[in-house]
């Protein structure tokens, strides 16, 4: 089934075997409440790694029965991160989530060469799935958070993550727009040049599983009428499932515009590790955190 609304992920997950979330240093109310909600609606099982006393207090404060979780006791945040990653590597969990520890420490545990979650040469990136008001389907895009200025190889990796995410959401042949300053191939503008190169690579079958077009301006990617006016015949135009951003500023601004100006829902995960990783920020809504957990479970 093709997911067209974020809520539909819950239906799909409810019909599947539950994936096991491992939450690192899950001692804060934000994390506990979001995970509890996901457990209660029956889409995941959860292991909370952290100080047992603090976790139980957090549960009590929010009227949550701690028995719905498996709790693995740890004294410190760093130890919790290492332990969580070890649980994943031991096959006791299917995906990871960050609790109250710093993003830096969380990422370091993932990236650790011997004990982490990375395959050699893998590229870690951040993929967002949004449900923007006024658009007729979900929009999957990246990278808005991890790679500031992706080079060509990193852009290819991100494009592959976008396509993979779309596939897991039931979109068989996702349409990927490669965002640039102009739809012209202007070799001196890196966003245009890289987009042209990536779209050629796709034509040559070096990137599979989707329909890829670029360079394209945002108007051509999401608005069919603009494509008609400009005479662009690509089937991606006006009907994109995915957008590759040329840099973090463009991606991050788009992300925040969707949340704050359009008041639309979105969710995100980190891809490139052996399992999907949830990396919510304190600013995210409860709903958004729940969606992010669901998204990671879809891909786990």
């Amino acid at each position, binding site marked *: 089934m093709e997911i067209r609304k974020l809520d539909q992920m819950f239906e799909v997950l409810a019909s599947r075997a539950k994936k096991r979330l491992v939450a690192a240093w899950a001692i804060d109310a934000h994390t506990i409440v979001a995970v509890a909600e996901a457990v209660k609606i029956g889409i995941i099982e959860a292991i909370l790694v952290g100080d047992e006393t603090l976790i139980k207090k957090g549960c009590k404060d929010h009227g949550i029965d701690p028995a719905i979780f498996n709790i693995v006791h740890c004294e410190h945040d760093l130890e919790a991160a290492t332990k969580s990653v070890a649980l994943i590597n031991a096959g006791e969990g299917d995906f990871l989530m960050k609790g109250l520890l710093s993003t830096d420490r969380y990422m370091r545990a993932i990236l650790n060469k011997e004990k982490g979650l990375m395959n050699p040469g893998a590229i870690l990136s951040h993929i967002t799935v949004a449900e923007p008001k006024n658009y007729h389907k979900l929009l999957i895009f990246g990278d808005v958070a991890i790679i500031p200025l992706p080079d060509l190889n990193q852009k290819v990796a991100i494009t592959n993550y976008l396509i993979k995410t779309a596939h897991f959401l039931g979109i068989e042949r996702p349409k990927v727009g490669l965002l640039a300053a102009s*739809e*012209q*191939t202007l*070799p001196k503008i890196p966003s245009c040049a890289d987009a*042209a*190169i990536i779209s*050629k*690579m796709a034509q*040559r079958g070096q990137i599979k599983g989707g329909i890829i077009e670029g360079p394209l301006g945002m108007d051509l990617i999401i608005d069919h009428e603009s494509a008609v006016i400009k005479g662009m015949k690509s089937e991606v135009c006006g009907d994109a499932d995915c957008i590759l951003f040329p840099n973090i500023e463009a991606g991050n601004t788009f992300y925040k515009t969707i949340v704050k100006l359009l008041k639309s829902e979105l969710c995100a995960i980190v891809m490139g590790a052996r399992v999907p990783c949830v990396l919510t920020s304190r600013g995210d809504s409860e709903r958004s955190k729940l969606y992010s957990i669901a998204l990671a479970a879809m891909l786990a």
Partner: protein
Amino acid sequence: MKKLIEIADKAKALGKQTRVAVAVAEDANSIGALCRAASEGFVHPILIGNKSRIEGLLKDYTLPAAGYTIVDLPNQDEATREAVRMVKSAEADVLMKGLVGTDKFLKEVLNKERGLLPPKAVMSYTCALELPKYHKLLLISDTAVLPNPDLEQKIAMVNYSVKMAHKLGISNPKVALITATEKVSSGMPNTIDYALISKMAERGQIKGCVVDGPLDIFLACDPSSLEIKGVDTPIGGDADICIFPNLETANAFYKGLMLFGDGELAGLIQGTSKPVVVMSRSESENSKYYCIALSCLMAEEI
């Protein structure tokens, strides 16, 4: 068009005499090819150099006196300068190198005040190949001028070759950008340039042709290879033009075909305001005749 002789037919069909100014017109080969074109009525040679030597060479041919012009300038530098001046001032339509060194000749062509290259124009070289085993003429670039063309120069090579194809009556030529593989990879910078150029053409930034690359020579010129390799390209093994990544590759390609494939060629300098014929001594007299015919077509404003 399958044979170079058809270029001469087209030149004859122009129904006019193109004025070819020859700098130091004192070598037998050039005079022979020019006299053939002149006797067929599509060229009026303007022979600049040592008058007595030129007349000595002309004795072997039976051109009517009105069929050519001699300008007596025994000094090579002066003869070359005069030939370029005549073309620049529209007293002649085509410039041709005679018995003068290529360096000296091109230096005059490239001279900023007196020469024929517009400011910022890229000078390059395109030649038309007749190949017994290919079903039509194949234009290739750059076999002679640009050792290591950058992106901008490659784009110029495409545009010049397309213009030549148009003059030969090929209205929407298929341009293949040649390298060793059809895959795009940053480890092979030419494949990156080619991806950009083919995307530029797709976006209408290069007009009047169909462009695809990177491709290897099989995918460009052999339809049966498409299926074997599973590559979808609008060139379809039917290229009119092959652009090569550097001079060594292009040069070895055409010389190999001359030597082992019974090929024949006609080439011209590109980028100048008027056609410039520079032939190497090793070229056959036929080849020189085709070059002259090609220059007559290229001199036409269409």
